[in-house]
């Protein structure tokens, strides 16, 4: 590096340089490789340096072999409820993290109402609007117990869940609101009888309905004490005035979010990189107070140094929302550096209720493994 040598002659002798440990990058390159610097106008160094030979001229191997990945990779769960979870993944790349997010949103199967057979609808909600709203109601059932229903299949107990909705508002009574707890599960299948043109069909056999259930779904062990119901009983589906009635049957099938968003098992799933706030110089007294008041999420704190002097410290970098208030104004960019750690991802998954969030993530990774296997088998 010729310019480096020229500078050295002017400023200091080569022996004054701190030892760069062998096998590691010098600090400024390490910063470029592992941190996104969020400047006032735009972030820089956002791309991840993946190429294995990127630092070959410095003698450093940038390839991440599987053993190094396995040693460095860590998961830390911060919060885990029935409906949402937040966890940290340290040591992976944005490409892998994004693949998890995409699968969670679009390719995990769920059960949702697809076919609505309307026998009677005298409410002011149109048929198709009612059917659309029913499709969006999340159902509390494990989709792994069911199969997909394709066009050639008949709806049976292994691929369909049937619900019934029959609400009536009598004349003279006040208006009623139809909520999702009015959906009743029919474990024996459809009750609407199909009209058969065949007049000579024997009347002794059971009338043909829209589903062909071989056995009642109540006999399946998972559903013995757990009836299938919508996850939230207070979702408003329709409103009825006096004299109006809704009678319908809804069939729920298995599908993935790619086809329609009603089959997405997460309310949403997102990730962000861990923020890193660094004070480039000591910020004291009045400047420290100013800095602390600037931040809307209280990232900074004041510590007392004694003798009335105070200093600003970074107390909660994780809460930083990157609003860049702390580097707005003159000179602040020289004092505070906002960065993001490129391989530390804070994932949040909010489930709609069919499956708990940790199961959702495990299923997503299983789907990704299957995809890889499919690609490998296509290649061989």
């Amino acid at each position, binding site marked *: 590096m010729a310019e480096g040598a020229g500078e050295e002659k002017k400023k200091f002798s080569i022996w004054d340089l701190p030892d760069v440990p062998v096998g590691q990058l010098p600090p400024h390159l390490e910063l470029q490789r592992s941190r996104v610097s969020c400047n006032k106008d735009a972030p820089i160094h956002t791309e991840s340096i993946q190429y294995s*030979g990127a630092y070959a001229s410095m003698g450093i191997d940038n390839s991440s072999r*599987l053993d190094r990945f396995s040693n460095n990779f860590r998961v830390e*769960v911060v919060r885990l409820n029935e409906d949402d979870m937040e*966890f940290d993944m340290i040591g992976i790349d944005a490409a892998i993290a994004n693949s998890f997010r995409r*699968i969670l949103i679009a390719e995990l199967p769920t059960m949702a109402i697809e076919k609505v057979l309307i026998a009677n609808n005298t409410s002011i909600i149109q048929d198709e609007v009612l059917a659309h709203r029913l499709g969006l109601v999340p159902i509390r059932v494990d989709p792994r117990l069911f199969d997909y229903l394709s066009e050639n299949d008949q709806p049976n107990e292994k691929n369909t869940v049937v619900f019934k909705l029959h609400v009536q508002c009598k004349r003279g009574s006040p208006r009623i609101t139809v909520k999702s707890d009015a959906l009743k599960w029919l474990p024996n299948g459809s009750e609407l009888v199909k009209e058969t043109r065949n007049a000579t069909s024997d009347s002794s056999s059971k009338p043909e309905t829209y589903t062909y259930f071989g056995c009642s779904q109540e006999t399946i062990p998972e559903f013995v004490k757990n009836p299938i119901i919508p996850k939230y009983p207070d979702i408003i589906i329709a409103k009825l005035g006096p004299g109006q009635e809704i009678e319908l049957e809804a069939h729920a099938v298995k599908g993935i979010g790619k086809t329609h968003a009603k089959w997405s098992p997460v309310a949403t799933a997102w990730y962000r990189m861990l923020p890193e706030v660094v004070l480039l110089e000591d910020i004291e007294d009045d400047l420290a107070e100013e800095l602390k008041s600037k931040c809307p999420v209280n990232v900074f704190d004041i510590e007392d140094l004694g003798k009335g002097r105070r200093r600003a410290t970074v107390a909660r970098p994780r809460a930083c929302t990157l609003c860049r208030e702390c580097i707005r104004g003159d000179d602040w960019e020289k004092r505070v550096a906002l960065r993001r750690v490129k391989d530390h991802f804070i994932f949040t998954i909010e489930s709609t209720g069919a499956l708990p969030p940790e199961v959702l993530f495990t299923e997503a*990774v299983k789907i990704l493994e299957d995809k*890889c296997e499919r690609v*490998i088998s296509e*290649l061989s």
Partner: protein
Amino acid sequence: MEHGSFTDNSAATFSLTDEDHTIANAVRFTLNQDPRVTFCGYSIPHPSEAQVNIRVQTTGDPAREVLKDACQNLMLMYRHVRCTFDKAVEHFKASNAVKALKIDSQDSSGDDSEESE
């Protein structure tokens, strides 16, 4: 589907159907980590069709083998992620159960069934 030269199999374009950015970006990442690869990238010819073209150029090894190795590596990575995640969730649940137990035992006698996790 592989498009390449019959004589030189160190460079090829692989066309995958029914795939999108999800798997293509992840495969490109693992391909880049392999020191045998000189060039790799992916493109989606048209967003309405679910087709991905992955281009691999290597330093002499057959491109097909290198891609297969990259996919294997990716699969092992995913497996490792799954195991680590499951362990972390179990650890979190166990430590939460212990905390709940400690709070409970201050009020009333502790519930032993929670401890069995």
